């Protein structure tokens, strides 16, 4: 038990060292001591004139820090909704895009780039992402309830439909616009600024708060509808709430980062293997580990090559081997009885 506690604390606090580590990384070199000095100065007297070169200030406070915060927010949103939806769908192989959200967001991005240059990509992606999730839910809903199998199937249908529409747009659009689109679809945080944080953070917070506060109830919900009902849960209402909250968090994350795969599937898994499936611990730790992982992946995207690699590619490339390792090590028994 003591060992579990140590793992818990390490995972819970992991974002702090990763945050500071990431501050020091970047294409433009600023001496680490200067960075620490700048941070202190900014915290102690934020409004006095800064004694450092203007480029330093711009890079640290307007580029690196917002990007770091955004990476962490996206990690939190994807991992906690992934963990939640895995419980709701009673399937550890579910990812946050199961409701067709990513394809909807992709479609939103595509029309914004191709036809509506005046409308921000983020807004379009957010709206169409939620719309897709909504349509999925609507298709699956029968007169009285929403069976999970129908939800999964409806999600597949909606995804296929929206991705087909995206393909049509890709086919028609001019090559210059196409490359922007493809880059966005692969997922990247290169466009982060404070505005992206102001627009996405409140929604991510509103979406994640209920997941965090009501997380223990996910244990019972993951045992199946009839059991959850007999334990006193209004299954239809609570499941709908969890799905809506997850969709909101994911849609706002996707709107600022593009489609970043694997994080929402992998992080809950990893945490479950390390600390067990109890959602009372799983949700908060998925949040912190998701934040750390997303941030490290983005660090790699920033520094590995002189040009930027979309972070979605990094999450997949770094995630797959780790996943395979855990699986081979005997992790299977953790989710398959």
């Amino acid at each position, binding site marked *: 038990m003591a060992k579990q506690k140590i793992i818990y604390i390490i995972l819970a606090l992991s974002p702090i060292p990763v945050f500071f580590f990431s501050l020091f990384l970047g294409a433009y070199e600023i001496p680490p001591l200067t960075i620490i000095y700048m941070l202190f100065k900014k915290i102690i007297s934020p409004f006095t004139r800064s004694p450092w070169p203007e480029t330093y200030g711009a890079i640290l406070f307007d580029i690196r820090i917002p990007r770091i915060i955004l990476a962490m927010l996206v990690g939190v949103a994807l991992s906690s909704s992934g963990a939640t939806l895995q*419980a709701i769908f*009673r*399937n*550890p192989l579910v990812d946050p895009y199961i409701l067709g959200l990513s394809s909807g967001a992709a479609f939103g991005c595509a029309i914004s780039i191709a036809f509506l240059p005046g409308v921000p990509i983020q807004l379009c992606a957010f709206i169409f992402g939620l719309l897709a999730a909504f349509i999925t839910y609507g298709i699956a809903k029968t007169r009285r309830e929403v069976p999970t199998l129908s939800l999964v199937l409806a999600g597949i249908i909606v995804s296929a439909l929206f991705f087909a529409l995206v393909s049509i747009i890709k086919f028609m659009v001019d090559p210059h616009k196409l490359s922007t689109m493809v880059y966005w679809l692969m997922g990247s945080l290169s466009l982060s600024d404070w505005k992206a944080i102001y627009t996405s953070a409140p929604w991510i917070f509103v979406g994640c708060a209920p997941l965090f*506060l*009501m*997380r*223990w*109830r996910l*244990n*019972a919900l*993951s*045992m*199946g509808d*009839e*059991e959850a*009902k*007999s*334990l*006193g*849960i*209004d299954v239809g209402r609570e499941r709908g709430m969890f799905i809506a909250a997850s969709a909101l968090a994911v849609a706002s994350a996707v709107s600022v980062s593009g489609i970043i795969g694997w994080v929402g599937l992998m992080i809950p898994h990893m945490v*479950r293997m390390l600390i*067990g*499936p*109890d959602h*009372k611990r799983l949700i908060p730790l998925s949040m912190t580990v998701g934040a750390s992982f997303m941030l490290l992946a983005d660090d790699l995207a920033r520094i590995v090559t002189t040009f930027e690699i979309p972070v979605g590619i990094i999450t997949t490339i770094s995630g797959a081997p780790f996943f395979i390792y855990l699986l081979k090590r005997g992790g299977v*028994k*953790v*989710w398959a*009885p």
Partner: protein
Amino acid sequence: MIQVRDLILRHKKLTILDGIGFNALPEEVTTIFGPNASGKTSLIKCINGTWNFDEGTITLDGQRIFRLKRRGMAKLLATVPQEHHPPFPYTTLEVVLMGRLPHVGLFSWPSQRDKGVAVKALEAVGIGHLAERPYTQISGGERQLTLIARSLAQEPKILLLDEPTAHLDFKNQISVLRVVRDLAKKEGLTVLLTLHDPNLSLIFSDKVALLNKGKMVAFGKPSSVITRENLKNVYDLDVDFLSQDGLRFIYPKIPGVE
């Protein structure tokens, strides 16, 4: 105490339960006994509010069930499902703690006191030592006992069990039913369960309700319900009885088998 009166359940054009009526009393084990598709599980699902029935009344400790909210119902009545593999390997204690759900606030989780109740429930069914084991890695019988412990953690007055002996081996069938019977006697619970096996029904029940094709064929003491005539009627099977040590056992008379 469960009171069922003139219960009718229809599904499309079929009448699944047809005018069922009986009382199940505290400190007693009442068994619903009958062949497949006789309506045993449907009756359980009507009583625990999973399904809405068409006519009649069901009252639990004097309260009509349609007046009860989910949470209130869960404090009064616990249903023990058949054992199964959940998708995630919760520890046995975590599974039992789920039983505290109706007592724990919406934005909260089990307190130290809730944990105490759960541990006591595990001990009451005799598997306190399994608390930290993954629920997916214990035996079927132990899983069934865990689910009974979870129901106890709800601190209900009424316990429903739908075929608690299905999928269990002979020894585990006996140990589960013994635990259930002890709970009725010691804790004063009203226990209602469904069974397939006439001998187990004879041994462990205080009252038996014999169901066939949605109708109640007989209700009362086991020895007066599980009779040669009734079984011939319901199963179309010739049976006979053996008496030993004050217990009666039933066996089928099969031509050619001596």
